[in-house]
């Protein structure tokens, strides 16, 4: 009886030891697997890290050169110290762009060492900066144009604005809603000349001009009877700024000229945004809009 009990105890111990060894071995296998997994993850993380660096570098290159292409989707000409814009408002939202854009697209897509696609986004042209001054021309929507000097020097560099409107139908009238005129020789003065021409009968041009205070808001309104066609606010918020807003139910051709005290050396921007996709096969694909 005693012998049987002892044998049973030894057998139990044997079973216990077998289970313990099995559990320890399993733990060892899991540990080795975990180490192997961590090493693979580390290599994957490393390759993703390098791919992210390559992708960021490609975006940087495309963005940097895209924003320096010396043509824009805005129609303007520079003559020494003046820049003349010729636009039809509302501005068309489209993805059609210049041949220079298309050539750049072809080069980026075919000659990049990293897989890249580059397309114009259906949108309005972006901000155009006029150099050497810090003056920005933007189109917040199809009906508006903003001209903003960005620093004191640029505010003082603007001599005058000329705005010429052409509308279908009879010639609208134009008048100041608010105006703060100053003498011609005042240090705060800048000159405004605005005209409007209606293509219908009677064929006539209305115009208005004034030296206005560049620090106070003056508003010019183009209207046909009670219908306002366009309002132009000068110096609203920013001295020397212009904000043109077209009533959405109208369409106009507008030519506006900014005359500076010195020569214009160049422009930057004014392009429609581009949609760039950079792909590292099996690792990363990133999309970015640049403008």
């Amino acid at each position, binding site marked *: 009886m005693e012998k049987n009990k002892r044998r049973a105890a030894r057998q139990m111990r044997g079973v216990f030891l077998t289970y313990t060894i099995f559990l320890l071995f399993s733990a060892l296998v899991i540990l080795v697997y975990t180490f192997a997994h961590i090493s693979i993850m580390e290599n994957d993380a490393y390759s993703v890290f390098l791919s992210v660096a390559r992708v960021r570098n490609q975006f940087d290159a495309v963005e940097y050169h895209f924003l320096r292409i010396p043509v824009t989707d805005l129609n303007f000409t520079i003559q020494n110290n003046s820049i003349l814009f010729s636009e039809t408002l509302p501005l068309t939202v489209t993805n059609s762009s210049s041949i220079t854009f298309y050539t750049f697209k072809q*080069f980026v897509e075919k000659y990049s060492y990293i897989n890249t696609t580059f397309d114009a986004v259906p949108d309005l042209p972006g901000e155009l900066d006029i150099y050497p001054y810090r003056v920005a021309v933007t189109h917040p929507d199809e009906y508006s144009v903003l001209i903003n000097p960005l620093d004191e020097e640029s505010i003082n560099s603007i001599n005058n604005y000329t705005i010429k409107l052409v509308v279908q139908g009879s010639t609208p009238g134009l008048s100041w809603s608010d105006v703060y005129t100053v003498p011609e020789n005042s240090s705060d003065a800048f000159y405004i000349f605005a005209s409007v021409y209606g293509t219908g009968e009677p064929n006539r041009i209305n115009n208005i001009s004034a030296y206005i205070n560049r620090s106070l808001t003056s508003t010019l309104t183009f209207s046909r009877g009670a219908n306002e066609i366009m309002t132009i606010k000068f110096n609203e918020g920013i001295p020397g700024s212009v904000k043109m807003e077209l009533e959405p139910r109208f369409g106009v051709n507008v030519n506006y000229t900014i005359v500076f005290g010195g020569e214009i050396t160049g422009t930057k921007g004014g392009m429609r945004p581009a949609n760039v996709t950079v792909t590292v096969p099996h690792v990363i694909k990133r999309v970015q809009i640049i403008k």
Partner: protein
Amino acid sequence: MSDIIRKSKKFRIKNGFVFSIDALLAISIMLILLGLMSFYSIRIYPETFPLANLQLKTNDILILLDKLGYFSQGNSQAIFQFVNKSLENGIEWHMTIEYYTSIINGTNVSFVLNKTIDIGTNSTKFSNSVSATRIFTIINSTNVSYYGRVKLISGYKNS
């Protein structure tokens, strides 16, 4: 009775000896595992992270060369000096710069390789290497005169 006690004592001592051997074995296995882990870590770090660092540095060199206008000037001597100064000793590099002109025929655009500049050591001599690439444009006042691409390979000297 005393014989039984002696036998049981002997059995316990024998058991204690076996358990000590077991513990020693367990400690040895743990030490081997720890040794393998530390060996693995030492093996990983010098290979991976200096290469990652070199990759980032190589990218940065291309960005700087581009934005400082070195590709526009196309002066291979100036580029050679700049890259040599930027990379530390013991690192060899090779750069290929290609300049293309565009031919526009209606809506068809093609590019012709105009000039290639090769600078630096032959890249087959590197043991561990990384590469960075970049596209660029050269702009005169009114249009894009050249489109270009550049590849910089840098690596450790083959010992």
